[in-house]
């Protein structure tokens, strides 16, 4: 057995330490062949995304408690941006997740956007798969941002929740950009702040102008006051993705796997060199990389 196989064996047997080491290997871009995840209706990968400061981490803390109380094992991958200049990062999401510290049944890993040679989405996909193989039934992925790329990062999740807050209204921008279609639910947090109601109203009316009849539901909650959380969880669990949304998700998954395959090809640098000198065309390069 190779070192990696030994680690995998022991992680599957329940070693938290070795699971954690394997996650680091995936983060560095190493490939890992894993068994297929067991079919189990209890398993769920939940993507939580939205602009900074709207209360995603606080909300994740509540979701952890909700699932913990129901006897589920919960793992969280919390992503924060790294500084493009220094490569450093301050990962503070766990500060807001008090419930993350409460026992053996919760696993939290903070990740920065750097590293991940094959693209962060592919690496999150592999990490989630490993976690579920190791018996972590509920996997929550927190990503920050309101742009197109952030929601695409979690396109592989089973359910996607977009979070917004008072005085932001980023979701309306997202709606205009046409990326809202990936979301299964829109949550406006901080309902204890009066202006949150206005934001929720604006989002609902923006949706009513769109062509799609099945825009996601818009729900007001307060993570801080633990208000509306049960309802949110019930909606997350019961929401059925319409066929067109499942298709969009599959398309996004294909795209990120494609990215990953190109980016992690050992021939990438050579192909870039050859295109630069003009000895091959872009199409040739693509054929070589995807071959």
């Amino acid at each position, binding site marked *: 057995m190779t070192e990696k196989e030994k680690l995998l064996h022991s992680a599957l047997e329940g070693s*938290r*330490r070795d699971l*954690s*080491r394997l*996650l*680091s290997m995936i983060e560095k871009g190493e490939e890992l062949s894993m068994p297929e995840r067991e079919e189990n209706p209890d398993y769920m990968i939940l993507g939580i995304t939205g602009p900074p400061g709207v209360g995603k981490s606080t909300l994740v803390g509540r979701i952890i408690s909700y699932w913990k109380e129901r006897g589920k094992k919960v793992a969280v991958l919390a992503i924060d941006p*790294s*500084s493009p200049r*220094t*490569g*450093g*990062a*301050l*990962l*503070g999401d*766990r*500060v*807001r997740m008090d419930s993350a*510290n409460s026992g053996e049944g919760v*696993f*939290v*890993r*903070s990740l*920065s956007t750097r590293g991940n040679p094959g693209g962060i989405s592919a690496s999150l996909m592999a990490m989630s798969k490993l976690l579920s193989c190791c018996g972590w039934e509920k996997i929550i992925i927190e990503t920050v941002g309101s742009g197109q790329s952030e929601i695409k990062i979690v396109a592989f999740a089973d359910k996607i929740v977009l979070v917004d807050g008072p005085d932001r209204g980023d979701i309306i921008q997202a709606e205009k950009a046409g990326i809202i279609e990936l979301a299964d639910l829109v949550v406006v947090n901080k309902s204890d702040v009066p202006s949150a109601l206005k934001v929720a109203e604006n989002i609902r009316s923006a949706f009513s102008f769109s062509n799609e009849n099945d825009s996601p539901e818009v729900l007001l909650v307060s993570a801080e006051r633990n208000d509306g959380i049960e309802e949110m969880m019930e909606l997350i669990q019961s929401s059925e993705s319409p066929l067109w949304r499942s298709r969009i998700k599959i398309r996004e998954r294909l795209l990120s796997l494609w990215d990953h395959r190109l980016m992690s090809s050992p021939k990438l640098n050579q192909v870039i060199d050859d295109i630069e000198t003009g000895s091959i065309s872009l199409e040739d390069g693509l054929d070589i990389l995807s071959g």
Partner: protein
Amino acid sequence: MKIVMAKPGLDGHDRGAKVIARALRDGGHEVVYTGLRRTPEEISRIVMDEDATALGLSTLSGAHDVLVPRICELLRESGMGHVMVFLGGIIPERDHEKMFSEGVRAIFGPGSRTEEILAFLGKSESRIENNQPVGVFNDDGWHWN
């Protein structure tokens, strides 16, 4: 380096920890901040889940003499003896030797300069690369100050 910055025990002084967490980020490190009032057991589990290379502890309340040895022991017991532990806050001179003998590799008190802390981390990185481990388990007596 991936560094967990933790506040153990009931101590509520978090300015220093936050200042240092930011300074280390600006120095190119990946810093996970735990927030206030973490127990030794929680800290050891956080270090494990994060697969961190180093653990920075900040205490100003005087409880370091109980908390630090307990944390170092838990790290060793749970197979994380390779993790480097360093310390900051209010640690009286008379306790330094005891902290070093527990496996702590550096202590930075009030007025410490960021450059020095970064230099210490750089030195530790190069020691690790040169197979001179700096973990809590590797009792070779080396410490920064």
